[in-house]
């Protein structure tokens, strides 16, 4: 388990938007091979937290420590370059492209290193796509089909497969089950479990549904008004306790 330090840590992060204080000294730690759930009521600061970690916003103060070193992100590309991948609700998936082209989009495998003629190695990309989908236990049979023909859960799987293939070290998932049905939700939760089993990725999961988060997470943090009001190991806690913590925090802050 967490014998070494966290893969990524956020320390005393503060962020205001004009007069609104979104984060007021919030911290988190995410470990490889584990899932950290971020819970909290609407407006608690969950989204701001992950947008800072993925390089979309810059914190007013506080530190981000990645593999023991202080890092600073000026863009989402900076975060992705060191291995922090984010999968947003509105997936960056192109429906008209095949599954394997989506997985390799903007990081294509090419023949040679010619400057103008960038020929795609489609066969190689398709084979690698099959392999990585197998690794995350996806039930997508044909990587040649257009992503638009897949279900919402399968599209989520394609997005995750892309991050896994490009050796993400931290995988942030923002409400991955928000628009999914029961079966599809199960599929995504299974996917998160199989990512966890790989042991080399720290998953940060943001979701409204407490039961869902508790069923896959190892730790949860509860945010309220931009502060972490509680931290729990899932093993030694319960859904009831967590609901209680969230409602008390929410009511107490009024």
């Amino acid at each position, binding site marked *: 388990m967490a014998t070494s330090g966290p893969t990524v840590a956020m320390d005393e992060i503060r962020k205001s938007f004009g007069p609104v204080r979104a984060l007021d000294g919030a911290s988190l730690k995410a470990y490889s091979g584990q899932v950290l759930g971020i819970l909290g009521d609407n407006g608690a600061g969950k989204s701001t937290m992950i947008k800072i970690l993925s390089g979309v916003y810059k914190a007013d103060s506080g530190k981000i420590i990645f593999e023991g070193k202080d890092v600073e992100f000026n863009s989402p590309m900076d975060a992705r370059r060191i291995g922090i991948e984010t999968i947003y609700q509105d997936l960056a998936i192109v429906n*008209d492209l095949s599954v394997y082209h989506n997985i390799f989009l903007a990081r294509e495998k090419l023949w040679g290193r010619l400057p103008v003629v960038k020929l795609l190695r489609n066969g190689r990309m398709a084979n690698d796509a099959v392999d990585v989908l197998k690794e995350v236990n996806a039930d997508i049979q044909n990587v040649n089909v257009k992503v638009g023909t897949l279900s919402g859960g399968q599209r989520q799987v394609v997005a995750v497969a892309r991050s896994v293939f490009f050796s993400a070290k931290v995988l942030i998932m923002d409400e991955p089950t928000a628009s999914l049905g029961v079966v599809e939700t199960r599929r995504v939760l299974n996917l998160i479990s199989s990512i966890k089993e790989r042991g080399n990725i720290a998953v940060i999961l943001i979701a409204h549904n407490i039961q869902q988060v508790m069923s896959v997470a190892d730790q949860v943090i509860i945010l309220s008004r931009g502060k972490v009001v509680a931290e729990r190991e899932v093993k030694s806690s319960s859904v009831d306790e967590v609901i209680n913590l969230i409602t008390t925090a929410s009511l107490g802050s009024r």
Partner: protein
Amino acid sequence: MNSAGLRERLNARRIVTSREGSVMFMSVLLSIVFTSLNVNFMTERNFVTIGELITGNSVVAAGQVMLMVMGDIDLSVGAVYALTPYLVYLTYTAGMPMQIGIPLSILAAVAVGSANGLITVVLRVPALIATLGMNFVVTATNLIISNDYQQDMPYQQPYTAIFGGGKFLGIEISFIWTAFAFVILAAMLARMRHGLWSLSTGGNPAGAKEVGVNVNLTKVRNFILCSTLAGIWGLFAANHNFVFGGIGAANPLQGGDTLVLESIASAAIGGTSLFGGSGTVIGAFFGSLLISVLQDGLFITGANAYSYDTLLGIAIILSMVLNMQSRRRSRLGG
């Protein structure tokens, strides 16, 4: 390509029911009808005529495909098509040989394409409006610099022959260039990174940008590509009369709005979506084949000149209906 994908590709039924296949099938059907009405349709001379019609607009249509898959369009291709030959005439009469005049004229086409691209990307003007404005600007420029007069194209070998005024191995050189262009452009859209980026730019611009596709650069490149193709094939059209011992013409009204509409029609009939995200270069070729057979067949059978426009209009609407249906089908997962 893995074996499942290959098998899917080689399925005969799929080829006929595919969009490109059905357009080709329609062209064959039309050819049989025209032949039954007038035996002169199935002659070598008439095939050359159809080839000339295809050469005239199909490559420009392929350029439109590259833009339309991104959800963009170029309405200034017809004006650029007339600009380049006139610039060759002007530079030649100013004392410049063609080896300078031709590159300069093509550079002008590149400049128009760059302007279209930058206006769309930097100033965020929709391509429809940006290139509509450009069409007026370049058309007016053509008329001003030419004083509205047509001029004889200068003749200087080997450049006249290379740029559409000659034959190679008994075949019109412009046919060979057209075939060559289709191979390159089809490979570009279907097999190269640029094609994948173009499709993703049309399919989900924000998402493509998010994963690292250079959406703006891809757009500008395609605007330049489309305009440059129009410029080069405009030279071929102007030099065409030299093939048969005549004299080529730099006509300020060559191409024009007819070429704009025919190039878009060819692309649309060939199955390219106007909303971006999907389309094929070879579809533009078959779209151009269909409207060329239609135009030639109606002429040869002595039909009313306006019946071509009527049928072309119907073909465009029909192809859009088919596009919407196939879009709906693919949404439903069929």
